[in-house]
């Protein structure tokens, strides 16, 4: 019985490593995008593009977004901007009227009289108007705060020269100026989650999500997926991406096509945004439940690697808790095994962390110059110390460092270290609560650096699971933007 339990806990500890192995493997493939990419099949293609931009109380950000679009390098008359005002109650209609007058023939103002139903409904109002005419050959879905670099549209549409491509997304970068510790954490996160991960997904043959801030569809594709955006989940961009691929079209990300966006500048706003994303991913998991791990029927979306990557993100807190329970269980049954397993597993975690951090810096050197510290502190400095303990422990003797316990304090310290994955997640939730309670920003920043931005995302993912299990309502909780994003040096 004891043997079976020990093996069970060892397996739990290994299960806890699944997200680490999955992201490590994903990072190892990134570079292959230099060999296997879509550039050789793209062409000098400049279709007529209709941008559709949903706006609800976006007076602070709309002007800059429209002005940035006017500077894009694209044939005059070959693109239009349709802004759908979702019954805004601020000065958005005034801004739109002024911009429509300033750029006649380029900016079109559509207004919903009954608003507040969410982004997807607003987008559909615009898409319906666009598809009612024959003019548009491609449709770009974007957010009100997104700033396009001059060549971004050209970089995206070139892939539509290949008729197999149904959708293209861009590399969305955090552009808050001046930046903050939180915005730099997000900027580094986007190197790993977009610039790196989506290159790997290009190599694998498809994406789980085309970013809603810059999602280009061919007209044929948009019609093939029903001519409208899904309104049943909180992840309409992911839903469209899945539908596109299930309709037989390919999607990809062009990592050189860059747009800049303003991301949340408080933990409360970040929590709200990521909770929506996390819940959306779980809703997608359920909505497409028939395709997981069925490669013969569903190709890429059904293949095992894709499924493991998907679930290791959507359910990351469960893996973290499983790993911690495994090590603690082993500690009580066979302390030496727990210590050896800890040393090996956290040692591998360190190798993965080192590789991902250094390589992320190399993928986007300009961003690395701005957010190198946040890259190092991404898992939390205390987690880095735990990794260091795992590496040093075999030299000084695991038993000397972690056990067998000479006192109850030794035992508690050993268990805190062994369960650090779970503890850091709970602690990161505590940082969010402290920030929400109105703690000074310097205190929040210190705590965030110590406990980590990664564990904070893990805590939000756990909250998303709880919200979905509790069947929380689907109210669209919009992230408020203040217009401080800028196109920055590359």
């Amino acid at each position, binding site marked *: 019985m004891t043997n079976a339990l020990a093996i069970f806990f060892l397996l739990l500890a290994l299960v806890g490593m699944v997200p680490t192995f999955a992201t490590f493997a994903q990072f190892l493939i990134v570079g292959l995008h230099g*060999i296997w990419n879509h550039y050789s099949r793209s062409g*000098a293609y400049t279709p007529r593009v209709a941008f559709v931009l949903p706006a609800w109380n976006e007076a602070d950000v709309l002007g800059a977004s429209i002005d940035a679009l006017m500077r894009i390098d694209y044939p005059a008359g070959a693109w239009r901007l349709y802004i759908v005002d979702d019954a805004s109650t601020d000065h958005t209609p005034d801004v739109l009227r002024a911009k429509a007058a300033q750029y006649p023939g380029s900016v079109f103002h559509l207004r919903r009289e009954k608003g507040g139903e969410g982004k997807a409904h607003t987008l559909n109002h615009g898409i319906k108007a666009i598809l009612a005419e024959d003019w548009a050959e491609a449709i770009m879905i974007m957010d009100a705060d997104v700033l396009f670099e001059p060549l971004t549209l050209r970089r995206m549409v070139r892939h539509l020269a290949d008729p197999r491509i149904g959708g293209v997304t861009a590399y969305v970068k955090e552009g808050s100026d001046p930046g903050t510790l939180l915005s730099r954490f997000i900027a580094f996160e986007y190197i790993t989650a977009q610039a790196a991960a989506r290159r790997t997904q290009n190599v694998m043959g498809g994406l789980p999500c085309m970013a809603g801030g810059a999602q280009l569809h061919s007209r044929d594709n948009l019609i093939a997926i029903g001519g409208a955006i899904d309104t049943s989940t909180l992840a309409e961009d992911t839903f469209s991406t899945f539908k596109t691929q299930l309709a037989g079209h390919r999607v990809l990300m062009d990592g050189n096509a860059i747009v800049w966006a303003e991301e949340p500048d408080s933990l409360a706003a970040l929590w709200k945004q990521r909770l929506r994303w996390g819940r959306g991913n779980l809703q997608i998991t359920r909505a497409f439940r028939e395709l997981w791990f069925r490669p013969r029927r569903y190709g890429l979306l059904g293949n095992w690697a894709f499924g493991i990557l998907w679930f290791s993100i959507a359910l990351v807190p469960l893996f973290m808790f499983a790993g911690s329970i495994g090590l603690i269980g082993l500690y009580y049954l066979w302390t030496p095994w727990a210590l050896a397993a800890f040393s090996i597993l956290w040692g591998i975690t360190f190798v993965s962390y080192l590789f991902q951090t250094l390589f992320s810096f190399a993928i986007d050197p300009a961003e690395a110059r701005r957010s190198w510290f946040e890259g190092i502190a991404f898992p939390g400095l205390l987690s880095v110390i735990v990794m260091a303990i795992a*590496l040093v422990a075999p030299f000084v003797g695991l038993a000397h460092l972690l056990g067998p316990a000479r006192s109850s304090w030794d035992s508690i310290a050993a268990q805190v270290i062994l369960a650090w994955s779970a503890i850091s997640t709970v602690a990161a939730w505590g940082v969010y609560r402290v920030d929400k309670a109105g703690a000074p920003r310097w205190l929040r920043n210190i705590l965030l650096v110590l406990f980590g931005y990664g564990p904070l995302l893990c805590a939000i993912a756990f909250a998303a699971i709880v919200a979905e299990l509790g069947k929380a309502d689907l109210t669209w909780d919009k992230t408020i933007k203040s217009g401080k994003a800028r196109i920055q040096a590359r």
Partner: protein
Amino acid sequence: MGQDDQVGKGQDPGEVKAGAAFDALQARDMRNERRIFWSEVVVIVLVALLVIGYLVALHWFRPGIVPMPHL
């Protein structure tokens, strides 16, 4: 033999310019992808050397290794 039959059949200068701009953009972006590829090779080699160094050190200084228990 003249080339009168080809008059007016050349590529539009605008198209030539657009084609050249497209080629330049493609070349620049593919260069960036190759840079990322070689960066990864360098990082892999660097991390692998560190791991090998660590394992060699572990081999030479192994007093702390706890023998696995027999279940």
